[in-house]
């Protein structure tokens, strides 16, 4: 009987510790929402955490005439080596947030071409491999 209690207790305690040490991309992405620029309406949050792949990718249909903003929030300051790259449906590069070895934490994109766009997050000299991101729009 004692063993059962010890095992169950250990599982709960260890799972708690494990969760605490993990990336909390959910919270980071929520923190990103109020950081969208003035006038932008919130659309989505994205969790940015390194899994099986070297990058995290989402897609969204952008509409011509609409301006979109994508920002990045990391546990430490600024983007912490997280790069967001925007590509169009044919995988042509539209934007990358790394410029002159600097990591920009927000991209504003006034869309002039309706279509599917890929939003890819990669990790470059990051300390945590963990972050969150928010997408907003305005007309």
């Amino acid at each position, binding site marked *: 009987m004692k063993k059962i209690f010890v095992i169950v207790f250990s599982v709960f305690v260890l799972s708690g510790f494990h969760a605490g040490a993990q990336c909390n991309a959910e919270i980071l992405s929520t923190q990103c929402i109020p950081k969208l620029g003035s006038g932008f309406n919130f659309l989505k949050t994205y969790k940015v955490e390194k899994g099986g792949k070297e990058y995290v990718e989402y897609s969204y249909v952008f509409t011509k005439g609409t301006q979109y903003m994508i920002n990045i929030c990391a546990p430490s300051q600024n983007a912490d080596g997280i790069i967001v790259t925007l590509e169009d449906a044919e995988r042509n590069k539209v934007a990358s947030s790394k410029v002159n070895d600097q990591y920009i934490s927000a991209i504003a994109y006034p869309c002039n071409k*309706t279509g599917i766009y890929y939003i890819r997050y990669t990790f470059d000299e990051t300390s945590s491999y963990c972050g969150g991101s928010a997408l907003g729009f305005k007309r």
Partner: protein
Amino acid sequence: MRILISGLFLVLFMACSPGNKSEEQAFVDDLDSAPIEDQAVSGEVNEILHRIPSPLEISVLLKESGKKYNVAFLNSPDNLSRYNTNYKRALNLGIYGTDLGYTNIYEQSQDGIKYMSTIKDLANELNIGQFFEMETIARLVSNSNNLDSLLLITTQNFNTINQYLQTQNRSHLSVLFLTGGWLEALHITCEVAKINPDNLQLQETIGGQKIILENIMHLLSFYKENDENMAGLLADMEGLKQTYDKVIITSIYKPSTFEVIDGVMVIKDNSSSTIEITQADIENIRTMTQNIRTKITS
């Protein structure tokens, strides 16, 4: 020992059950629309679900281009009692969600409260009512200064519901919910375009929905073998697609440029797209959309 282990399993199981109804009731309710979902399909479904634009974008477009609010475009909350299957509940939850966004954008708080209440009832029937905190939402709806907070909370709610349904292997409800929301936004846009036949922006918006329609049809196709309702809906969408086949979207890519202003990278998009759509195409799309919507809302 067995009792202890059984007890622990029961506690764990109950702790993982967030619904208002019992799991058993939810299971019974889901029987009328429960396609099999494997992991590979689920991954692709989730990816496509993420990319479909929010109907709120269209409501903002209509408001900011000076188009008047018209409650007659929307599905009446009085129709709620007609929706007795999860298939119809999920589709109409999407429709009412778009209607709520439309009332919110136009700051029509009285209508907004009615839609919120209707959505809460439908969500309860689908066992996802726990995601709507009615007191908070009603307080935000009552004051137009809270518009940003209201939009944020309702958008977050719907995003959370979609995520929850995906984790519960009930993505088919997310697909229906999204399809209903998109169809309602298209319906409203077509009705506004009918009143404003010379508005090029509206024509382009309607034409641009061709891309979304293709994605929605792809989503529905995953379920056509196992769910006759979704197969029927896909067949209706195929009819709409035939009309959309006459719409031609041409895109030209040119590398973008940028400048960094106050820490924000502001892109200058040098690419362009043109959408060829005629008045006859718009009228056909409007009629087809209305027919499909009538089937769903009646």
